[in-house]
C-alpha cells in the first residue's frame, strides 16, 4: 500500500494537461484516483508522473442536454450524475447506474471520464454507453477525436483511447420520448462492481409490438457488449412474460462470458438471463400490466 515515487503536477488547462501527458514518459492522468491510486498502492501501476485534472473542472465537469444528446463532462463524479435532474429526466438508466457505483466515497470521487478511460470490465458505465450509442470525445494535441462506444471498449482495461488522449466528454444519444430506460445490477459483495449489469431501453409501436429495443451487458465477461441476440429476439414481438423470457435466454450469446472466484462462467450466463429478463420486465412494465 506504499506506491513507488512519482512526480505530480496539476494541469492548468486542457492544453497543458495534454502537453504534460505527452512530454513525460509513463505519465498518467489523475481524475478521481479511485482506480489508479489502488493500483499504484499495490505497485501494479508505477507511473513516473501524475497529471492531476482537478483544476479543469470548469471545462470538463457537468451535464448538459444538447438536442437529442446528453453530454457528460469527463470530470463529473458519479454522485453528480446520480443527482442530476437532467439525467434523471432524460436518461434515468444512467442515473440508476451512477447511483449504484461502488459506495458513497467511490461515487463522490470517481468520475465518468476516469471510469470510461479505465474500462474495468465490471464497470457500470460501459453498459450504458453501449446501450445509448455513446460517443467518447477525446482531446489529443492533434485535435478532437470522437470514438463510438461500440468501437471503444476492446477488452479488460483495454480501449481505443489513443495514446496521450484525454477523454473530455461522453455524449449519449437520448432515446425517443416515452422510452423506458433501466439499469439492473447485481453488485459484487466485496467490491461493489457489477457481477452482471444490464442496461435496457425500449418501446412499442402503435400495434403494441416492440418497435425499438436496446440491451447492453457489463460485468459478465471480458468486456461489456450489446446483447444483439436479445434485441432481435424481441423486436417486432408483443412484450409478454413469454417473449421476454425467450429473448432474455439469449442474453449471454453475444458476450465473452468469464468466471471468477465469486461466480463461475455458467452462473454468470444464468445471471445475464435473469437480469436481462428483470430489466425487460421493467422496460415493458406498462405492456405487461
Amino acid at each position, binding site marked *: *500500500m*506504499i*506506491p*513507488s*515515487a512519482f512526480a505530480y503536477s496539476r494541469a492548468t488547462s486542457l492544453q497543458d494537461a495534454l502537453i504534460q501527458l505527452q512530454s513525460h514518459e509513463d505519465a498518467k492522468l489523475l481524475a478521481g484516483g479511485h482506480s489508479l491510486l489502488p493500483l499504484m*498502492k*499495490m*505497485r501494479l501501476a508505477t507511473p513516473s508522473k501524475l497529471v492531476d485534472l482537478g483544476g479543469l473542472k470548469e471545462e470538463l465537469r457537468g451535464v448538459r442536454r444538447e438536442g437529442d444528446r446528453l453530454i457528460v463532462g469527463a470530470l463529473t463524479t458519479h454522485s453528480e450524475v446520480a443527482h442530476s435532474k437532467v439525467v434523471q429526466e432524460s436518461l434515468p438508466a444512467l442515473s440508476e447506474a451512477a447511483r449504484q457505483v461502488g*459506495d458513497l466515497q467511490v461515487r463522490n470521487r470517481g468520475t465518468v471520464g476516469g471510469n470510461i478511460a479505465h474500462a474495468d470490465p465490471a464497470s457500470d458505465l460501459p453498459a450504458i454507453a453501449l446501450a445509448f450509442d455513446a460517443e467518447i470525445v477525446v482531446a489529443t494535441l492533434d485535435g478532437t477525436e470522437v470514438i463510438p462506444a461500440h468501437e471503444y471498449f476492446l477488452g479488460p482495461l483495454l480501449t481505443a483511447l489513443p495514446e496521450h488522449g484525454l477523454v473530455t466528454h461522453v455524449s449519449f444519444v437520448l432515446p425517443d420520448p416515452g422510452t423506458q430506460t433501466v439499469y439492473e445490477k*447485481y453488485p*459484487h*459483495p*466485496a*467490491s461493489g462492481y457489477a457481477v452482471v449489469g444490464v442496461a435496457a431501453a425500449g418501446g412499442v409501436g402503435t400495434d403494441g409490438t416492440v418497435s425499438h429495443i436496446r440491451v447492453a451487458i457489463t460485468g459478465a465477461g471480458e468486456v461489456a457488449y450489446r446483447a444483439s441476440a436479445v434485441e432481435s429476439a424481441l423486436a417486432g414481438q408483443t412484450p409478454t412474460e413469454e417473449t421476454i423470457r425467450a429473448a432474455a435466454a439469449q442474453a449471454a450469446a453475444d458476450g465473452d462470458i468469464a468466471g471468477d*472466484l*465469486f*461466480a*463461475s462462467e455458467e*452462473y454468470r450466463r*444464468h*445471471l445475464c438471463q*435473469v437480469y436481462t429478463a428483470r430489466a425487460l420486465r421493467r422496460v415493458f412494465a406498462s405492456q405487461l400490466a
Partner: protein
Amino acid sequence: MAEVQGIGVRVKRKEDPRLITGEGRYTEDIQLPGMLYAEVVRSPHAHARIKRIDTTAALSSPGVVAVFTGADIEGHVAPIPTAWLPPDSDIKTTAHPALAVDRVRYVGDGVAMVVADDRYRARDAAELVKVEYEPLPATADQELAMGEGAPLLHDDAPGNIAFHWRAGNATDEVFEQAEVVVRHRFRQQRLIPNPMEMRAAVAEYNRSTGDLTLYSTSQNPHIHRFLLSGVLGIPEHKLRVIATDVGGGFGAKIACYPDEALVCHAARVLNRPVKWSEDRSEHFLATTHGRDHIEDVEIAGKQDGTITAIRVRAIANMGAYLSTAAPGVPTILFGLIVPGPYRIPYAGADVYGVFTNTTPTDAYRGAGRPEATYLLERMVDLFAAEIGMDAVAVRQKNLIPSDQFPYETAMGLSYDSGNYQLALHNALETADYETLRATQAELRKEGKYLGVGVTTYVEICGLGPSQVAGAVGFQGGLWESSTVRVHPTGKVTVFTGASPHGQGEETTFAQIVADKLHIPVEDVEIVHGDTARISMGWGTYGSRTTPVGGSALAVATDRVVEKAKKIAAHMLEAAPEDVEFVDGSFQVKGIPTKSTSFHDVTLQAYLAWNLPAGVEPALEGQAFYDPTNFTYSFGTHICVVEVEAETGQIHLRRYIAVDDCGRVINPMIAEGQVHGGIVQGIGQALYEGAVYDDQAQLLTGSFMDYAMPRANFFPRFETSFTETPSPHNPLGVKGIGETGTIAATPTVVNAVMDALRPFGVKDIQMPLSPERVWSAIRNGGSAE
C-alpha cells in the same frame, strides 16, 4: 452532585468522542524523534528452500540503515513461542524463527527486515532484497497435508500432525445402539479477521538504561511483555509494552508475532526508534487467520427427539506454525463445548491439529466456540429433519432445565447458571414463530422461499480460573488485576489488567465504580494497556474483561469502601459496623443526620491528620481476582431469510437475538457488542472465506475479493436480554463480546436450509454464496 450513572444505565461511551473525531492515539500515530521505518520482505512462495539472500542492493538504496535476515538475528531473537500446550496431545512445538532461515513455509513468511529513514524508502529497498528460492511442493488443505506423500513442513512433526487431542465419554457402542444416528461433514472455512486497525509496532530503546518500550497493537500487553522478554532476552522490568488505543483485534492481536519482536531488536541494535506498520495486503497474509476446520460429526438420538450423544472428529488447519494461543482454540475452547446447552449424556471430540503451508491460524472472535456451536446447531436441525420433528421442539426437549444448575456436562464442565427456556421463549415470542411458519407456508405457494433458523447456544466465557488454565495447558494465569486509586478530591483512577480495544470498558468499568462509590462516571478514569502503569494483567479475549477484570475492579472498589468506612466511622465517632455507605455518604445507621460525604473521607484519608489506629494513609484498593469457574452466557437467536430461487441470493429479513450475559452493565454497549458479533457471524455464514489455490497461494488477498459484511447488508437487529446472574462472581456478570459471532452463523445457515427444504437441500458449504445456493437448488442436494 450529578446523577450517578451506575450499573444498568445506557451511558454513552466515554471513549467515543476521542475515537470518532480522530483524536485517538493508535500505534500508527506514535511519532518519535529520529524514528526509522521497517518493512518486512515476505515470501511469495508457500513453501521453498532459501538458497541465498542478497541484501547488497537494498543496503545501498537511499535512506537504508540496516537489513536483517534470519541469519543476522540468530542468537539475538529467539524463536516465537507457542503458549498453549494442551496436555496429552503429543504437541509438536516446532521452531518458528522470527525470520525464516533456510525455509519459508507460507506466503507471507518473513525473510528479511529492511530499516530506512522513511517508510517509502524502506518499501523501495524491500523490493531490492534478492532472495533466491527453490520452490517445494505445498499444500493449503489440512486433510491433504495429513495424507500420504504430502509435503512435510517440519521435520520434527511427522505427517504434519501438530497435535492430537481427545476428550469426552462418547463410545462407539453409544452410536451403534442408538435409534437414530445422523452423520455429516462440515467445513468451517478459513476467515481473515481484518480489524479496522491493522498491526503496528514502534520500539524505542534507551541504551544508557537498557529500557525498551514497545508501542503495539495488542489485546494483552502483559502477555506480550512476558513472551517478548524471553524472545528478546530483555528482562521484564526493562521492557514496557503500551497498547492504549487499539482499533479492534477479534483475536488477531493476541498472538506474539515475529514482526513486533523484530522491531524491538532493530531498535536495540540501531539505538533509534523503529516503526513498522502492516498494510492491508500484508494483513491478509501476515496476521493470524481463524476457523478452518474439517468436521465429521455424528449425532445420536431417539425418535421422540431426545439427543443421546454427539461427537466430532475434527481436523484443524493450524497453518505453517503454531501461533501463540492456537492449539487451545480447536481443543479446549471447541471440544469441551460440543454438547452445548443440551442434556446430552455422551459427547466426544477428537481433534487433529495439522500444519499446512498457510498463514497460521489462532483465535478469531468466539475462538472454537463458534465452530462447536455451528456443528451442534446444524446437527440438531439435521436430526430434527431426520425424525420429522420441528427443530424448535427438539431444542425445547433437550435444553438443560433451569433448575439443574450448576450443571455438569459430559465434557466435565460445570455450567454456572442458566434459564435457556426463557431466552428461547422470548425469542420465539419476539419472532412470532407460529405466524412466521404460517407466512412461510403461504409464500411457498407463491414460489417464495422464506426460511426461519433458530440457534440455542451456550458459551464458555470469562476465561477463567488459573488452576483450570494450568490444567488445560495454557502457559499463563487467567486471573485479573485492578487498582482503584481514589485521589484526595474524590476523583478516581482505575488501573486494570484487562486490555479493551474497542469494547467500551472505559465506560462500563467507570459505571461499576460510579455505582459502588456514588460518584459521576466522569470522575472515573480507566487506565489500561500499559505495563508500566499496571502491575499485571492477562488482557482482553475470551469474553473475560468484565467477568474477570470487572470482578477484580468490583473487589478493589469494595476494599476502598471498606477502608473509607473505617475512616468515616472514626470521623463520626462511631464503630465501623454502625456506619453504612448510602447514596454517596457515610452515615451512622439509623441517624441520617450523622453523616459525612465520600469527598470528606477521601480528603481525610490523604491528609492523615487524624486516622483511626492501624489505618494507613491514602485510599487505594487493589485486587487480584481469580474466578472459581468459567461463566456461561447463553441465548437464542432467530433469523428470517428469503431466498431468491432464481439466483440463489439470500435476503435477510429479520434477525432476533435474545442473549443472557448475566447482569447487564450498560445495555447500549451490550447491544453494540451483540450487533458487531452478529455481523461477523453472518459474515462467515454468507460472505467471508479465504481461498487458497493448489499451490497454497491466497486468492482472496484483498477487499476486492474477500467480502467483509457491510452495514447495508443487514436488517435492523431485534436484540434483547434476559438476566440470569452468574452466581460466582461479585457482579453476577457473564461475557457478551462473542455471543453474536457464536450464535449468528448457524442461525443464518439454518434459516437458509429451512427455506430450501422444498428443494431437498440439506447443507451448503459456507459462505453460502448465491452461486452455491443456486447450484444446490438445481441439484436438489448439496452444492458440493
